[in-house]
C-alpha cells in the first residue's frame, strides 16, 4: 500500500523563553492520503500555523514524526507548496516573474520558467496581467497569483494557510470556486487552514477540528458531498447539519 | 522596459557620466599641457612649488615679474605657484616637503620652530616692517593711548594681545583692551563700527582706504616701541637646504632679479602683477599701482642687496613675542628661549 502523502504522529511544539515555556501544540496525529483535500478549523491561536510551519520545514517539531511520502527526514523544506496568509508578492517583479519565483530558486532556466508561468496564468484566465506589477492588483487577484506561484513550485502537496481570509464574501466565494477548478486540474494533496466552516465543507474531503491552545485534534469528520463540488451543495440538508455540528463545537472551544 | 534593460540603464548611466567627466578632464589637461614652458637649451626644467601666504598682492610682485620675464626658466626652474588655502599654511606645506619654498613672516617662523617643525627664512621681501594699527578718523582715537578699553579686531595669533598692548603702553596707556578675532575683512569690520582698531599693512589696506575716501589714523608699530622685524619673508625647509642648495640658489637668483626690477620699474611691475595674477583677483587695478608705488622703494634699503636679513631683526622681536608667553611648543607649553640664528640664512642671496 502506498504511504500517505502526509503523516503526522505525536507532533508537539513547545516554545521556551528562559524559564517560561509555552506549549503551542499538544500531540497531534494527522494523515492525508494522496489526492485528498483536508481542512483544519479551530479557534485563533490553536497552533494551526505552527503545524504548517513544521510541515513546510520552516520550524522544527519539539517531538513526534512528520513524514512526507513516507520520508521522515528533517529536511522537509521544498517538499511542499507552502502558502502563508499574506500573498507576499515581490513588488519589483511582474506577475509573471512572481509566479516563477519558486522555479528561479530551483535554478530552472529562465526561458523555461517564463513559459511555464505564462501557461499557468493562461490556464486560469490571468494571462492579461502577466506584465503588470502587484501594486496594481486587488487583494483577491494577489491571492490567486500567490496560489499559482505555490502550485507552480509544487503541485502535488499544498499547504494553504487561510488564503481567502482577508477577502470580502463575494470575492471569497469566487476564489473558492476557482480553487476547486485548480484542484480538479491537479488533484493535489492539500492541507487547508480556515476559520470559515462553510468554506471547509465546500472544499474538503475531511475536516480536522482543533481545540484551543494547546491545540489537539478534537474531531475528524468526513465530508460526503460528491465531486466536483458546487456552492449549491452547501444548501443541502447534510451540509447544513454538518455545519451546525461544527459551529457548535467551535463555539464551545472559542469560549474555553 | 524589462528588468534586464532597467539594470543596464541604472548602472550604465552613472558609468557613462563618469567616463564623460574623466574624458573631458583629460582632454583639458592635454590642451593645457601643450602650453607649459618646455626646456630651452640643454638643461631640463625642474619643477618647484611656491606656497603663497595670501591671494596675490604687491608683496609678491618680484616673483610674478621673474615668472613673466622667464627668469625662472632661464635658471632651469618651472615654478608653480600654489594658491593660499586657509586650512593649511605655507609653513606646514614647506616643513612637510609639499612645497619647496613658501612665504611666511617672522612670527610664523618662530612659531614653527617652537613646535618642532622648523622652517628657515632665506630672504626678507620687504626690508622694514610696514605694519600699523589704524582707527577711523571719525572715531576721534588719534593716538594709541586712547585705545584703552576699546575693541580690537584680531587675526587670531596668540601673541597679538602682547604686541598691541605694548604699543598702547609705550604711548602712555595701560594696554588693556577688548579683543575679537575677525573672520571678515579687517577694514570692513572697522567701517561697520563694531571694531575700534585693527592691524593692517601700510602698503595695502591703508592705501585702499585712502582711495575709497575713508580717513584713517595710522600708527606704524615701529614708531611705538615694537622692534623692527621682517614680514613677509621667503621660507624653505631645512631638508630642502641640505638636499637642494643649488636649486635654492638659482631660485633666489631669479627672484632677486624680479624684485630688483620691481624696485626700479613701478609701472611695469604693477602691470605684470595685474596680468599674471588669476583673473578677478584685482577688482581695482589702481590700487595695485598705488600700492606698488609705496612698496617698490621699500623692498630693500638704497644701495643694499635685496633680501638681506640682519641678526637684530631676528633677535629683538622674536624674543619679545616669546616673552609674551604666547608661543607654545608641540605639547602646549610656552617656549621662552630659542636659537634665533637657526631661523634665517642669507647664504642663497
Amino acid at each position, binding site marked *: 500500500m502506498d504511504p500517505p502523502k502526509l503523516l503526522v504522529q505525536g507532533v508537539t511544539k513547545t516554545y521556551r523563553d528562559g524559564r517560561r515555556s509555552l506549549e503551542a501544540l499538544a500531540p497531534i496525529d494527522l494523515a492525508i492520503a494522496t489526492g485528498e483535500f483536508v481542512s483544519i478549523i479551530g479557534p485563533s491561536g490553536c497552533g494551526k500555523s505552527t503545524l504548517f510551519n513544521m510541515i513546510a520545514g520552516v520550524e522544527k517539531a519539539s517531538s513526534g514524526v512528520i513524514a512526507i511520502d513516507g520520508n521522515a527526514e528533517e529536511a522537509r523544506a521544498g517538499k511542499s507548496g507552502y502558502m502563508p496568509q*499574506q500573498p*507576499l508578492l515581490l513588488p519589483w517583479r511582474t506577475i509573471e516573474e512572481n509566479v516563477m519565483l519558486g522555479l528561479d*530558486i*530551483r535554478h530552472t532556466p529562465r526561458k523555461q520558467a517564463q513559459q511555464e508561468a505564462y501557461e499557468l496564468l493562461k490556464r486560469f484566465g490571468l494571462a492579461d496581467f502577466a506584465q503588470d506589477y502587484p501594486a496594481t492588483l486587488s487583494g483577491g487577484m494577489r491571492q490567486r497569483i500567490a496560489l499559482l506561484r505555490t502550485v507552480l513550485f509544487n503541485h502535488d502537496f499544498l499547504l494553504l494557510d487561510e488564503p481567502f481570509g482577508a477577502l470580502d464574501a463575494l470575492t471569497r466565494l469566487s476564489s473558492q470556486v476557482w480553487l476547486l477548478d485548480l484542484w480538479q486540474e491537479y488533484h493535489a494533496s492539500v492541507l487547508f487552514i480556515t476559520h470559515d466552516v462553510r468554506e471547509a465543507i465546500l472544499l474538503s474531503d475531511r475536516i480536522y477540528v482543533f481545540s484551543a491552545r494547546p491545540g489537539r485534534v478534537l474531531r475528524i469528520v468526513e465530508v460526503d458531498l460528491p465531486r466536483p463540488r458546487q456552492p449549491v451543495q452547501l444548501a443541502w440538508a447534510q451540509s447544513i447539519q454538518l455545519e451546525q455540528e461544527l459551529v457548535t463545537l467551535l463555539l464551545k472551544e472559542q469560549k474555553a | 522596459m524589462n528588468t534586464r534593460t532597467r539594470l543596464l540603464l541604472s548602472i550604465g548611466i*552613472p558609468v557613462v557620466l563618469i567616463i564623460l567627466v574623466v574624458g573631458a578632464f583629460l582632454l583639458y589637461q592635454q590642451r593645457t599641457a601643450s602650453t607649459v614652458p618646455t626646456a630651452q637649451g640643454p638643461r631640463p626644467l625642474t619643477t618647484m612649488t611656491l606656497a603663497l601666504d595670501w591671494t596675490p598682492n604687491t608683496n609678491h610682485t618680484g616673483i610674478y615679474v621673474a615668472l613673466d620675464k622667464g627668469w625662472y626658466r632661464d635658471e632651469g626652474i618651472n615654478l608653480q605657484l600654489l594658491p593660499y588655502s586657509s586650512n593649511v599654511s605655507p609653513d606646514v606645506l614647506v616643513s612637510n616637503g609639499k612645497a619647496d619654498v613658501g612665504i611666511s613672516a617672522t612670527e610664523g617662523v618662530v612659531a614653527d620652530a617652537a613646535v618642532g617643525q622648523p622652517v628657515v627664512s632665506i630672504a626678507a621681501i620687504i626690508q622694514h616692517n610696514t605694519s600699523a594699527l589704524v582707527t577711523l578718523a571719525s572715531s576721534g582715537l588719534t593716538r594709541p593711548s586712547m585705545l584703552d578699553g576699546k575693541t580690537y579686531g584680531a587675526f587670531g595669533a596668540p601673541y597679538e594681545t602682547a604686541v598691541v598692548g605694548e604699543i598702547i603702553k609705550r604711548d602712555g596707556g595701560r594696554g588693556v583692551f577688548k579683543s575679537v578675532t575677525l573672520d571678515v*575683512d579687517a577694514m570692513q569690520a572697522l567701517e561697520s563700527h563694531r571694531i575700534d582698531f585693527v592691524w593692517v599693512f601700510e602698503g595695502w589696506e591703508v592705501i585702499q582706504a585712502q582711495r575709497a575716501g575713508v580717513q584713517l589714523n595710522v600708527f606704524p608699530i615701529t614708531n611705538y616701541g615694537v622692534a623692527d622685524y621682517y614680514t613677509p619673508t621667503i621660507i624653505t625647509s631645512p631638508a630642502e637646504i641640505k638636499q637642494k642648495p643649488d636649486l635654492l640658489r638659482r631660485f633666489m637668483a631669479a627672484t632677486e632679479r624680479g624684485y630688483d626690477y620691481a624696485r626700479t620699474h613701478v609701472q611695469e611691475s604693477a602691470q605684470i602683477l595685474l596680468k599674471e595674477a588669476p*583673473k578677478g583677483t*584685482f577688482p581695482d587695478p589702481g590700487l595695485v599701482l598705488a600700492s606698488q608705488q609705496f612698496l617698490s622703494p621699500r623692498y630693500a634699503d638704497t644701495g643694499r642687496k635685496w633680501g638681506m636679513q640682519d641678526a637684530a631683526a631676528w633677535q629683538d622681536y622674536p624674543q619679545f613675542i616669546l616673552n609674551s608667553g604666547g608661543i607654545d611648543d608641540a605639547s602646549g607649553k610656552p617656549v621662552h628661549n630659542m636659537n634665533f640664528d637657526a631661523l634665517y640664512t642669507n647664504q642663497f642671496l
Partner: protein
Amino acid sequence: MKLRGIAGFGPAFVLAVGLLAFWELYVRSSQISPAVLPTPTGIVQALIDNWDVISVHTLQTLLETVLGMAAATLLGLLLAALLDISSWTRRAIYPLLVTSQTIPMIALAPLLLIWFGFDLGPKVLVVTLYCFFPIAVACADGLASADPELMKLLRSMRASRWQALWLVRLPGAMPSFFSGLRIAATYSVTGAIFGEYVGGFQGLGIYMETAANSHVIVLVFAAILVTAVLSLLLFGLVSLIERIALPWYHSTARRIG
C-alpha cells in the same frame, strides 16, 4: 506623463523666482553695498564674464565629485553587506561609522595633505568619506527590514541565504538605498569643495577662497551658483535612475480585477 513631470517643478520655479526678485529689489533699494551682497543679476553677469576661468574649476570639482560618489557607493554597499552579515559585525562597525562623520576638516585637512599631497586623491577621499555614510546606513536598514514572513516563505522553498539576499533582500533594500544615495548626491559637491580646502591648484573651493580673500564677493556667489546647479543636477540624476530602476515603487496603485 512628461508634461505632468515638468509641471511638477512649477511651484519650486515660482518660489525661486519670487525669492530672487525679492533679493534683487532688496539690494537695489537698501544701503547694502553690492560688494557685500551682490544682486542675482550681478551674479549671473559675473558668471558669464568669468566663465572661461570658472569652467575649468568646475570641471575639476565635478571630477572629484563623480569619482568620490562612485567610490562612496561601492564602499557604502560593501559596508551595508558587512553590517548585515552578523549582529556582531554590526555592533562592532556602526559606532566607528558614526565617528567617521564627526571628524572636522580642520583636523583632517593637514593630515590628508601630508599623506596624499595636492592631487585628485585627497579630494576624492573627502567626498567618499562624507558620502558613503548615508548610503551605507540606508542600505543596511533596508536589508534589515526584510519581512520575516517573506523569509519564511523563501525557506519553505529551500532558498539558500545567498538566494534570499540576491532575489529578495537586496531588491527590497533598493528604495532605502536610493534615498541614501539621494542624500549623498546632494552634498557630494560641497564635500568636494571641503576637500579642496586642503589646498590645491584648481577647483571651485579654491576659486571661492581666493575670491573671498580678494574680497570679490560676487565671484564667490557665482561659484556658489555653479555649486548649487551641480548639486541639483546630481540630485536629479539619482532621481532619474531611481525611476528607471524602481518603476514599481513610484506607480500609483490602481485597482484592477
